[in-house]
Structure formats: C-alpha cells, structure tokens
C-alpha cells in the first residue's frame, strides 16, 4: 500500500502501525514527536494499535516549546 510520509509517497506492507512506521523511518527521539494522520493528531498512547491504510498522509512534528 502507498502512504505519504512527510510529503513523500512510499510503499509499505499492509497492517503497518504508526509505531512501526516511526521505527522504519528512523525517527529521532520519537518520545518528543507528534504524529498526524490525514491532519488529525494521534495520541501517543495509541501509536502501537493505530493501523495505517492506503492513501494515508502522515506527518511527524517535533513538539516546539520552551520557557524563560
């Protein structure tokens, strides 16, 4: 199946989860990454069970914050 990851279309096996995609894409410091699928944010606790489907668009965003 084809999934768009950070703007690039890629081929993956069926049954791919968000957690597995993070691993396959070698996402650095994944504990600080927010994931959106089709512009909806996925709760980090759901990564293991969230299955991706043909045509999904996935983005990885680093949380951006700080303080004085």
């Amino acid at each position, binding site marked *: 199946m084809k999934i768009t990851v950070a*703007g690039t279309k890629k081929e993956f096996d069926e049954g791919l989860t968000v957690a597995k995609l993070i691993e396959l894409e070698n996402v*650095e*410091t994944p504990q*600080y990454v*927010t994931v*959106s699928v089709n*512009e909806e*944010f996925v709760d980090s606790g759901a990564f293991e069970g969230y299955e991706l489907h043909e045509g999904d668009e996935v*983005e990885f*965003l*680093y*949380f*951006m*914050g*700080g*303080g*004085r």
Partner: protein
Amino acid sequence: MKITIKRSDFDRMYEYALEQRPDEACGLIAGVEEDGVRRIEKVYLLTNIDHTNEHFSIDPREHLASVKDMRANGLQPLGNWHSHPETPSRPSEEDKRLANDSNASYLILSLAEEGHPVLNSFHVEGPAEARVSEKEELIILEDA
C-alpha cells in the same frame, strides 16, 4: 553555523512579539541551507497556546499547516523562534530541555530593554537533561 534573516522579517517578528506581550510570542523559521549558511526566507508568526510570559508551546495545528506551506513553497524547516519579554536573549534551562531537534536553529528575541530588541540564534544538542547551547552567527540583511 551562519544564519541570515531579512530586516523586514526581523521587523515583523519584533512587532508581533510586542503585540503579544506580556505573553511570549513564538513561531517557525524556514528557508534554504547552502554551503553551511542558513538563509531564512520566511518567518511564521504562530500562536503560543500556553498564553503566558513564562512558557511557550506552538499550536500544533498551525505547526502542521506551516510545514505544509514550507513544502509547497520549496522551503526547508530551519527551526523556531520565541520571545523573552523580560529576560535576555539566551536559552533558559527549559528552552534547552525542550530543544528536541539538534538540527534546528533556535532564535530568541529579547524585549527586556525597551526599544532595543536583541535577537540571537542558538544550536542546542546533547541529552535532554544536559543540553548544551552554542550561539550561531546571525546576520540581519538589509532589504534590497
């Protein structure tokens, strides 16, 4: 690392930061990187969802929209910026702890001295509890 920003973008950032006071203002920077020089081509003025003068968190929906805009315009994400309404232009311990992307440039605009904004850029790396920041060479380019 050397990083450049246009005077007009600096002015927009400064005006937005003044409007957002007493809260910290924040946003993203995008542009191109060539021969070890980062050239900021676009500054995004985004919402600090913390709405305080002590913290900032960039609105994730605006963050996502900005990343898509960068891609549509052929720009690379270069990092982020935020204001320090009352403190100097240097990363706080919290800034360093939350600087999770070692490839990013982190710009801090200090408004501590009225009428004299100070903008610096920093590279931050290392494990979360022992991050080290290093000042980058920031050049403000006068618009043609």
